[in-house]
């Protein structure tokens, strides 16, 4: 682990990504402090997920810079970013459906440990991994389902497994891509309190459409539209801003 050398946990400078002629993110700049809770909002197609994909390394930006705790990660492969303390969840649930919940979370733990290269010992040899995985599952309230395959559990529970896999990594920066999508009201409040309980060592950046819930969790808000940052700042200031109203109400 490198020591934080910057006052920002994550910094994005003039990020640009275009597919052919279609510009998806244009000159996006963000600066997020350690421990901050940042909400990213904007209409469909505003470039929110594309921004996340560039931060996590799934897509290469055409130009611009991404810094994690001051270190330039713009050209690093996704797995190297994970080792520097970046985790993410997906809008479309991306789990190992045939495997148990415990195995899913264990993979999250294994990804950061040298034992992922171990070819002689069975995975079950690492009892500490299993214990830790069960502890994380307990924290998201799914311990009772630990031995079930993901394909057996309900949609809302899968959302929580997504979170558990990322949380197990104890990331410094956590990207949550619509963690509330498709949840019922009860499930929503469960996941909400789960996100609220994430320790302050972790900086949380969240894309979410459900404003009622998400705004409660956020301290700062960034509004994107057509791939640009429209407003950026403290939650209440952004909500009150006229430009926010323009984007959302079209006036």
């Amino acid at each position, binding site marked *: 682990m490198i020591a934080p050398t910057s006052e920002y946990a994550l910094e994005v400078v003039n990020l640009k990504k275009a597919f052919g002629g279609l510009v998806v993110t244009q000159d996006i700049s963000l600066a997020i402090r350690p421990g901050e809770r940042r909400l990213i909002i904007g209409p469909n197609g505003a470039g929110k997920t594309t921004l996340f994909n560039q931060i*996590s*390394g*799934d897509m290469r930006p055409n130009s611009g810079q991404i810094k994690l705790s001051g270190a330039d990660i713009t050209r690093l*492969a*996704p*797995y190297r970013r*994970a*080792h520097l303390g970046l*985790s*993410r969840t*997906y809008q479309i649930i*991306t*789990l*190992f*459906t*045939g495997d148990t919940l415990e*195995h899913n979370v*264990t*993979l*999250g733990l*294994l*990804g*950061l440990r040298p*034992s*992922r*290269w*171990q*070819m*002689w*010992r*069975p*995975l079950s*040899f*690492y009892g500490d991994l299993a214990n830790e995985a069960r502890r994380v599952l307990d924290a998201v309230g799914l311990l009772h389902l630990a031995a079930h395959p993901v394909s057996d559990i309900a949609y809302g529970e899968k959302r929580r497994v997504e979170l558990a*896999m990322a949380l197990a*990594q104890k990331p410094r920066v956590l990207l949550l891509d619509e963690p509330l999508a498709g949840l019922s009201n009860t499930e929503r409040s469960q996941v909400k309190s789960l996100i609220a309980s994430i320790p302050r060592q972790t900086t949380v950046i969240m894309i979410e459409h459900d404003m009622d819930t998400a705004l409660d969790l956020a301290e700062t808000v960034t509004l994107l539209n057509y791939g640009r940052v429209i407003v950026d700042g403290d939650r209440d200031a952004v909500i009150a801003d006229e430009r926010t109203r323009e984007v959302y109400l079209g006036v």
Partner: protein
Amino acid sequence: MKWIAATLLAALLVLLPSFAGEFYLNLSSQILIAVIFALSLNLLVGYGGMTSLGHASFLGVAAYISALLTSRYGWGHGPAAIVSILGTTVMAALFGVIALRATGLGFLMITLALSQVLWGLAYRMSDVTNGDNGIPGLTRPMPFGIPLDSPAAFYWFALIVTAFAYLMMAIFVSSSFGSSLKGVRDQPRRMAALGFNPWMIRWIAFIYAGFWGGVAGLLYVYYHKYIHPASLSTASSAEALLGVIAGGSGTLGGPVAGAALVLLLKNYASAYTDRWNILLGLVFLFIVLVMPTGIVPGIGKLVARLRGGSR
């Protein structure tokens, strides 16, 4: 139940030379070799999600290296075997770098193209490989001074190597690296986000599979005492792939059963007809259309259903 079956099978395999005739012992040796080969291919196809149509490259190259070193340059079997396996593994590392530039169908096409190039080379470079005539008159090694020329001795030898190979590959797939490999097969993007290096994981699996493919190749050339470019052909790769898929890819038992089945089929069919390739093609169509998940998982499901029904 499972343990009883496994013990019975082991006892049968060990005691086979005491009651089976030469024909069946030789057939069994060939099956054992095909099993190692199918298991190694299954590391790629079943556990890595990398469908290769060029796996015969490893079998053929290992066999050719050993054949050339022992027959032409007069090497002993020991050093020849080491160089042959080492050479094959290095070749797997190189082929892996090329083929893993792509995944899915691109990977399949590149492996096929690479192996066809080797096959063409074996045919054309007749100064070295003796071309279409192949290299005849090879010998079998004498490990610890024990000659392997009798069918029983060779069977024992093949059985020991196969048991060891099976064990090593079983350990490999159940290891934490095996979990990484299966994870990369199922969700490569997620695995990368979790900190795994998908490319490196696939590459290592490719090299390991190449290594065991080379071991199968050595046994192959020891058994036949002859090597021909056909062992490098697409048909040779395809037979192994058929064994893996017919048996059930991604399981340990599947390729064993599948490889045995394909070899038995080939053997019995050849008694009646020369048209093995037509039969091979038809079996391909049949397996893919009728039982795409393979025989072993299919039987497993059937057993589960029967048990569920009897309760």
